[in-house]
């Protein structure tokens, strides 16, 4: 056997990119299960259809770019993008909506910028925003959760996706919308009079968020990412909510707990904000990045025009990430005393 000439180090740790992506996928499972429990099979159909499309687009893009297809498919990044996007889409979304979303995410946001690792913007969020701006009606058509309306079966879910014309689903506003539109009722009354509210936040939503939180904590435990960005985002979001809670009056923006457990907060905090490619790199940078996303989420939720704000907040901060990096370079060993000089 010929002796190899390789640069050191010769040993390698157990972590691999494939494992990172697989862990992220695994961590979304509890959240997906809860979503399915409360909103029916819609999300699940979204994800399966989306993942298939993602693999298809990814293969096509890799082939066009002359890259080895199977080698790059194995990193699971396309499936992760598809999963995160499809979780964020309303259940029972029509098939073409998902096609447009995944195409925007994989082809435009990812491969046009050079593929995994080179994309400045989070592909899933780009896909989401493209859909939200292009098809606002479909994108805000959330079906009522278990306890507030009829749940659809698997067949109906498939029908909703692939023959959307035949599907007759009831849609309702999300709790975030209701809160925003409310200007007459005290928080307490709003909770009592609307069946869509649960114990702390929206019915179903709160448990989905708790499930994503659990998945995120597991990833943290697995050291897939550090606590800095999610913690900073949740803290700043909570702080903003506390500042504008206004004692639960009719002008209140909702309690911190409501904001933590509403919309895509936990999904965003642990699965989107932590996307390493598009976030700041240093630990201090991640704190700033996360905190500003939290602030933006609240600003857009409270005073913006869109029902949820995560995608916009993340994309705006994606712009700022290189800037943050520039100013948060850590102090290198041996340069400790330079600041004081």
């Amino acid at each position, binding site marked *: *056997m010929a002796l190899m*000439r390789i*640069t050191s180090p010769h*040993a*390698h740790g157990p972590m691999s*990119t494939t494992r990172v992506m697989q862990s992220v996928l695994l961590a979304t499972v509890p959240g997906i299960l809860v979503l399915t429990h409360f909103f029916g099979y819609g999300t699940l159909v979204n994800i399966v259809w989306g993942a298939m499309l993602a693999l298809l687009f990814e293969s096509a893009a890799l082939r066009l770019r002359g890259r080895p297809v199977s*080698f790059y498919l194995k990193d699971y990044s396309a499936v992760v993008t598809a999963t995160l996007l499809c979780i964020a889409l309303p259940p029972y979304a029509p098939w073409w909506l998902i096609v447009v979303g995944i195409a925007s995410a994989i082809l435009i946001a990812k491969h046009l910028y050079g593929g995994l*690792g080179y994309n400045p913007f989070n592909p899933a969020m780009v896909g989401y925003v493209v859909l939200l701006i292009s098809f606002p009606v479909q994108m805000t058509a959330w079906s009522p959760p278990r306890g507030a309306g009829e749940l659809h079966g698997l067949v109906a879910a498939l029908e909703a996706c692939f023959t959307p014309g035949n599907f007759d689903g009831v849609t309702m506003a999300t709790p975030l919308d209701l809160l925003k539109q409310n200007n007459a009722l005290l928080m307490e009354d709003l909770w009592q009079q609307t069946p869509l509210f649960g114990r702390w936040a929206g019915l179903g939503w709160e448990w989905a968020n708790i499930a994503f939180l659990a998945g995120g904590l597991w990833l943290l435990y697995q050291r897939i990412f550090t606590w800095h960005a999610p913690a900073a985002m949740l803290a700043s979001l909570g702080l903003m909510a506390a500042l504008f809670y206004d004692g639960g009056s009719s002008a209140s923006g909702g309690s911190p707990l409501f904001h933590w457990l509403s919309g895509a907060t936990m999904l965003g905090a642990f699965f989107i904000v932590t996307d390493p490619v598009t976030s700041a790199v240093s630990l201090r940078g991640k704190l700033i990045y996360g905190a500003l996303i939290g602030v933006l989420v609240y600003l857009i939720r409270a005073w913006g025009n869109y029902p949820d704000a995560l995608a916009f907040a993340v994309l705006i901060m994606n712009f700022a990430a290189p800037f943050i990096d520039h100013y948060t370079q850590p102090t*290198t060993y*041996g340069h400790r005393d330079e600041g004081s000089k």
Partner: protein
Amino acid sequence: MRKIYDFHGGIHPPENKHQSVGEPIEAAGIPQQLIIPLSQHIGAPAASVVTVGERVLKGQQIAEAKGFVSVPQHAPTSGVISAIENRVIAHPSGFSAPCIVIDTDGLDQWIDHSGQPDFESVEPSELIKLIRSAGIAGMGGAGFPTAVKLTVKAATKIETLILNGTECEPYITADDVLMRERAEQIIRGATILRHILSPGETVIGVEDNKPEAIAALRAAAEGTGVDIVSFPTKYPSGGEKQLIEILTDKQVPSGGLPSDIGVVCQNIGTAVAIANAVDKGEPLISRITTVTGDAVDKPRNFDVLLGTPMAFLLDKAAYQAGKNNRLIMGGPMMGFSTPRVDVPIVKTTNCILAPTESELPTPPPAQACIRCGMCADACPASLLPQQLFWFSQGKEHEKLEEHKLFDCIECGACSWVCPSHIPLVQYYRSAKADILKARSDNEKSEQSRARFEAREERLVQLAAEREAKRAARKKAAEERAKKAAAGDGEDPIQAAIERAKAKKAAQESS
């Protein structure tokens, strides 16, 4: 109890040290041929002082130091110089370099030698000279001449003398067994170093995964005032800068030396070499080397003569060439792979690692960098390896320097954690070399420019001078012509004609 500090980052790779500590240190014996590279240290290579065919004795100087940062080489055993030529040496390039080859005679006959056992009455500068003439260079891995390291500026007060017994690299146990078996000599070396530097305190730092070594050192240090400090195992705590931070919470300034902050750090193997040199006058001619890895059946530590071919040691450890995928000189984190088995052991060879494919698999093709930041968390120098990788790829030298590339110690922690298996260290090594090359090219082109301009100037000046001379000559000629025309004195041609006419007339008249 001394306070221990932590440094940023670090990793915990599998230690794999148990394989080679089962047996005591074994004398490797005398191979038929020893190959002594003239450069086994950082700095200028030594220059041979022997001739082919000459018989040398054990401990005889065979090459002398050239310049300040250099050390001499000595014959590790008695024998005949059979060649002074280029041989393949232990270097990642696989290149050859000048070596003195000794055919050993098996007699192992010492040259007359004596040390300064009563070192406390000897001037430190004398001891430093002795250490230099004994050919001692740092034995931890870098091979920096020890005498140079001990020569600190007169104004510098050394607060802390640190002996490095950390040995944080996986697999290597050479220092571990040395501490277990030769603790007295280490302490002896420590007291000699203490006499030379007169530091405020003398500390031996050992990772807490070597309890036997710590116990042996503590027993030997009883009553000497040498402090044995153990601290949690973490790679790369044995790096000089990291060890200094662990023990003193001070950081060596970038581009500076430990002595700038009042610290001198020496490897414990170097301390033993110093003890031998000072007590007995023995130069550095042997060292402890670990031979380990799954491709050797009998992993252990050898007391080996410098210049011993690696193949000789591998044989002693029952090497299975068929199972081996690469030979590494040093540990798995910072060692380099050598393409041949006949390269010689040198002063810095602390380990020969012969792993199997399943043990240290061939690295898979690198995937894309997802900027996960695991490398930044692991970096002991608090760099941003992912950014450095980016800039190295783009050859953005300015950005690299801005991101402190030259503070990278190439420990390999970033590559070890990288989930995409990117050979980060290779990028940094290459980028560093490119930048250094660009700097020296720049210097050279600056010099060429100066020489070109000087030449141009000189040519212009020469032309001007020539022009001036020509003008002067022309002027002189013109003036002479003018004088003639003015009738001031005879016109020479007219005069010649007159003279000729006069001559002719004289002839005719006679």
